[in-house]
């Protein structure tokens, strides 16, 4: 559509006139693309580059080849972070069924249900900093509600955030709270779009309850599930705030994930190994890339059919 036949008379205004359709998108895109390229694309390239240097952020960077990556290979903290990221990825997905469950629960028409839906969405609106704070109180080994409840039932106390085996799960649960709310709202909007005639048809077909859900509703919620999946994966890989607030990576580094570890390495009090941090970021990016590729691929499949 862009390349039209060459015009005969080459007057400038005429040219603009004739190519308005081609120029218009360029002009509309220009500011956005420039901004994005400058602040996102270019830095990604830079990060890749930086991961081959040793640099403390103050002096001159020194090229060290793949040294950073080699060091990553037997960095125990890195390994722990990777495993934790994996835990995040898997556990965080629980937000999807949980969100669906709540959405189904709330998908009714009773007085005030709109308000309820909004209130259920609340955790998502609140800063993770606050969420982290709240949950660290909840987990507090001495006065935390969790232990009070456990105590009430006669169990001993658990120090969720102090136990290297539990800490990651503890933080993930805190993260699941807002994420579930997010998935819930996605599913609520998805449920709005469910074709009522199909539900009725299925009802006539004798599908009920779980069968209806599984065979008819969930397939129709595919778009919502897809978005929920994407945002959840991204959320899981980006997890930073909660860890920073709740444990600061501890105890002794057992709740670190890659994103936190790279922050620690690159910018925190005892860090400033920019190149090493960049190398961690690159690894994280490569992991994410597989999801991005999947996402783009499925989008491409859809687009092929479109206009």
């Amino acid at each position: 559509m862009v390349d039209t036949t060459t015009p005969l008379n080459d007057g400038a205004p005429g040219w603009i006139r004739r190519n308005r359709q081609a120029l218009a998108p360029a002009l509309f895109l220009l500011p956005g693309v420039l901004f994005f390229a400058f602040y996102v694309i270019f830095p990604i390239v830079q990060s890749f580059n930086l991961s081959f240097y040793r640099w403390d952020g103050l002096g001159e960077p020194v090229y060290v080849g793949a040294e950073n990556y080699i060091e990553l290979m037997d960095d125990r903290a890195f390994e722990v972070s990777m495993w934790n990221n994996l835990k995040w990825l898997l556990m965080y997905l629980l937000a999807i069924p949980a969100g669906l469950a709540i959405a189904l629960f709330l998908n009714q028409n009773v007085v005030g249900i709109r308000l309820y839906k909004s209130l259920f969405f609340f955790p998502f609106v609140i800063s993770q900093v606050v969420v982290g704070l709240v949950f660290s109180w909840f987990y507090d080994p001495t006065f935390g509600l969790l232990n009070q409840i456990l105590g009430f039932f006669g169990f001993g106390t658990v120090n969720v955030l102090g136990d290297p085996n539990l800490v990651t799960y503890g933080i993930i649960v805190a993260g699941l709270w807002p994420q579930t709310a997010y998935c819930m709202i996605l599913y609520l909007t998805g449920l709005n779009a469910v074709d009522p005639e199909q539900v009725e048809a299925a009802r006539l077909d004798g599908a009920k309850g779980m069968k209806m859900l599984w065979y008819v509703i969930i397939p129709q919620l595919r778009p919502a599930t897809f978005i929920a999946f994407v945002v959840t994966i991204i959320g899981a890989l980006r997890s930073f705030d909660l860890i920073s607030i709740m444990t600061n990576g501890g105890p002794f580094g057992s709740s670190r994930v890659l994103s936190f570890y790279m922050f620690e390495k690159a910018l925190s009090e005892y860090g400033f190994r920019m190149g090493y941090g960049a190398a961690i970021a690159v690894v994280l990016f490569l992991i994410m890339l597989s999801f991005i590729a999947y996402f783009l691929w499925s989008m491409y499949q859809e687009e092929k059919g479109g206009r």
Partner: protein
Amino acid sequence: MFPRPIEKSSPAWVATYQALVPMALVLWLLPLIAVAVFSIKPDVDFTTGNYWGWPSAFKGFENYGKVFFASDMPRYLLNSVLITVPTVIGAVALSCMTGFALGVYKFRGNLLLFFMFVAGNFVPFQILMVPVRDLTLDMGLYNTKLGLVLFHVAFQTGFCTLFMRNFIRALPFELIEAARVEGVAEWRIFWFVVLPLMKPAIAALSVLIFTFIWNDYFWAVVLTQGAESQPVTAGITSFNAQYRAAYHLMSAGSIVAALPPVAMFFLMQRHFIAGLTLGAVK
């Protein structure tokens, strides 16, 4: 339509449901309610170990007073507003344009550009941390609200473009063709035809971006420092560092920090859901 509409069930079940929903809500929001209660407790409740019980006295005014008048909280809040509002405006404006261009025009590389935005948006933003920090430093925008705003605008443009472009795609293309046949210039089509139709998407995005930016902590820590430019998320952590173990004050501070996005969400709730339906869960 699913599950079966409750009004078709027996009245007893309807009543049960109506009772169940608020109960579930209380359970769901328990952590928040706890914070709210914390924030009006007197400090003696914490020294005497009355963490989860009924407040022994109402000290809401004192606690919130302290947050507002004896700390940098108001300043942080103002910073947050000054960071969030321009970001929302900037990101939404940019993405309306990019979304329009990508959604309406056919040209070579359209999908490629679009995918660039999408991919960039899903990038773990930590990978940007070091270079962006350096960029910001080099431009002399370190520790300025502007530096934060510029970056947020750029980064959020990815997500917003995805959202806007899909939304515009879902609009009937005939509207644009009709306008073209009527002799309307492209930018006028954008302004008079497409923009008004994007209102729900703009509203939804604004709320979403507002919450994202308001709650951003990572970049606040990376790109700013100190009360003169840090937003409230960073503010609350330093506030908390100051009042560590003063749970009532921390709670009050948290509530204050959480309030604006909550208010924003409530104000725009109707549009938010509508826009989300169209944009994200097409």
